[in-house]
């Protein structure tokens, strides 16, 4: 039925467009150049009047009719089936009815169910036809209304413009609402978690052992939710990654902007872009199979104990992932430094290196800082590399040769396997997610502010 309705709307809109445009052409013939808008705008005007409200109605109908039919259906069941049954029980009954209605039979359903299923099918068909009829009527009315407004001096062009801007506002409001919804769901689940585990213990506790049993037959620890070791692990890895990526990325950018010839640049830039496009899971392989063993054997030969999954390995590989990111943002920042500053320095007799160090970097520093901060926030949120290459045990350490775990790794492990959304183990993932979200949000806001302030200065 939905498909029919949508096709109907499409067809009607096209008809409306043709009719509207024909009116426009008639006006054009009759009154010549004094017509305000082109005929096609008359057509578009009628078409949006016919199409858009009908589309909104259909979508609303499709979204709401299900729940309305469900509650009607439940109300129509004999009392013997519904009294004393609540929540999940009712859902069970409903889904049984729907299965039967769809022709999926498991065993021998009760006669009341079969009866209800027949009723459901009848109502669904009815609701579908009702929708088509109502939508059709709406379109006819809208068509008539829009037709009456057409006239030679009618500003169809402006009216269509208003429809378009309304559409764009609706799209952006929709995007914002989705974001808000995500944040709210994160908040709600986190609050549920903080009812079970005090927020102080979560933020400042030093012991993280979340693998508690959620079924009676499981054997596991008691559960401890002090997230400091997890935060610390994240910070260690992000720091290693940044310390590795920032200088390399920055030097790459300086080289590309100041020293590389056009030929070198035309090779290096695409290579960096390829590096930026490598899926993070491939970096993960690289970390596990190449970098971690190398670090371990180097550490051993130096007499340092390095664990197989060291924070260093994960951090370095994450740093490699960030190099193109930092280098391209620094490249932009350096390029945005006006050529006149560079020339001014060179003309006094500064060498290129002096010019870069004392003038270009000074002028581009805000942009570079912003880029590095954005990179840090990516490092904190990065998941795949650390899932593969960092550890699972939350150790309270800042030694990069130890194995550490990160916020993202913990979220993944908490939500893998048995989950129940009333256990602190599962809900802890949302609390971690909330912290992660707030941190990266803060970093991004700071970074963007820095970058923007510096943009204003030169444009």
């Amino acid at each position, binding site marked *: 039925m939905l498909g029919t309705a949508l096709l109907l709307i499409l067809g009607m809109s096209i008809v409306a467009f043709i009719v509207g445009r024909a009116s426009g052409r008639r006006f054009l013939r009759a009154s010549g150049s004094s017509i305000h808008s082109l005929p096609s705008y008359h057509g578009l005007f009628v078409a949006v009047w016919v199409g858009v409200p009908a589309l909104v109605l259909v979508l609303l109908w499709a979204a709401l009719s299900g729940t309305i039919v469900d509650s009607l259906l439940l109300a129509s069941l004999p009392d013997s089936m519904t009294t004393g049954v609540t929540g999940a029980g009712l859902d069970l009954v409903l889904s049984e009815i729907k299965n039967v209605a769809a022709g999926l039979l498991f065993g021998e359903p009760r006669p009341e169910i079969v009866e209800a299923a027949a009723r459901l099918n009848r109502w669904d068909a009815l609701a579908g036809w009702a929708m088509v009829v109502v939508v059709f009527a709406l379109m006819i009315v809208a068509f008539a209304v829009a037709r009456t407004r057409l006239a030679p001096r009618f500003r169809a062009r402006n009216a269509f413009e208003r429809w378009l801007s309304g559409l764009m506002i609706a799209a952006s409001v929709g995007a914002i609402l989705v974001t808000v919804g995500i944040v709210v769901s994160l908040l709600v689940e986190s609050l549920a978690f903080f009812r079970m585990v005090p927020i102080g213990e979560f933020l400042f506790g030093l012991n993280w052992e979340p693998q508690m049993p959620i079924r009676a037959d499981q054997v596991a620890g008691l559960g401890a939710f002090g997230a400091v070791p997890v935060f610390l692990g994240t910070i260690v890895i992000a720091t290693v990654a940044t310390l590795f990526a920032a200088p390399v990325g920055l030097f790459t950018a300086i080289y590309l902007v100041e020293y590389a010839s056009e030929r070198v640049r035309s090779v290096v830039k695409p290579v960096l872009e390829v590096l930026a496009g490598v899926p993070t899971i491939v970096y993960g392989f690289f970390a596990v199979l190449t970098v971690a063993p190398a670090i371990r054997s180097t550490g051993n030969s130096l007499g340092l104990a390095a664990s197989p999954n060291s924070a260093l390995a994960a951090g370095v590989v994450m740093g490699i992932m960030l190099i193109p990111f930092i280098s391209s943002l620094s490249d932009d920042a350096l390029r945005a430094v006006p050529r006149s500053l560079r*020339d001014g320095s060179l003309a*006094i007799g*500064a060498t290129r290196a002096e010019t870069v160090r004392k003038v270009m970097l000074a002028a581009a520093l805000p942009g570079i800082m912003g880029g590095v901060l954005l990179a840090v926030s990516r490092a904190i949120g990065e998941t795949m590399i650390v899932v593969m290459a960092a550890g699972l045990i939350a150790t309270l350490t800042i030694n990069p040769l130890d194995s550490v775990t990160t916020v993202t790794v913990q979220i993944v492990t908490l939500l893998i396997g048995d989950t129940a959304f009333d256990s602190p183990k599962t809900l802890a993932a949302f609390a971690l997610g909330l912290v992660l979200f707030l941190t990266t949000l803060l970093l991004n806001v700071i970074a963007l502010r820095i970058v923007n302030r510096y943009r204003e200065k030169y444009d």
Partner: protein
Amino acid sequence: MEQLVAPTSKMGVDVRHTGEAGTTEIKVSAQNVDVFYGEKHAIKGVSVNVPARSVMAFIGPSGCGKSTFLRCINRMNDTIEGCKVTGNIRLDDRDIYDANLDVVELRARVGMVFQKPNPFPKSIFENVAYGPRIHGLVHGKADLDAIVEQSLRKAALWEEVKDRLKEPGTGLSGGQQQRLCIARAIAVNPEVILMDEPCSALDPIATARVEELIDELRQNYTIIIVTHSMQQAARVSQQTAFFHLGILVETGSTEFIFTNPHDQRTQDYITGRFG
């Protein structure tokens, strides 16, 4: 310098070098300079002599190659990709395109002031101290302070900024910024100062100050100034060179060029018939 202003009587064979004084010390001498930007031939066989401790103005319609030629004199064209310079340019009789010559040192001797004021995003003090620092001209803080003050005084900016040396140079007015750039250029004690339309971004009052300044600076420095203003050329320069389509059409004493040019193109240009 007085004899430069008066047109000399001897101008026989080479009409293009009208009014040239043969007796003065020549600071910069260019012979048959050609400049190419890739395929584009921007400067075609230009030869000119710039007398020491005087002001020479380069005039000519837009795109005729004034800036290009100016940039040859401190080799700033080297920083432009695809730019090729041929011919011979001498500073104090030494070839500046010699392979053994240190460009960095050359640019310390030949300073440059740009069309748009371009102070560094640093404090006023640091802007002026930049050159002396990188060239190691100073030993100790007192020395540096002295050079900064002296340069700002020479640039007629000291009185206006002496209480705010720590403030950013970019916070000054356009005219002050341009004088700051002049101070920055003279802080390394150059011998020649190249100025590419130094007043085109300034109002008439700031322009007058800079012109006054140029007039004072010529006691000690050789100055070459590119300008689009005939009045400015007439006011500040002793020598004028007129460029057209990459060719040096005519050069000579300013008074002579402006009152009695030899070439029809020069006459048309300075009387505003094309440009």
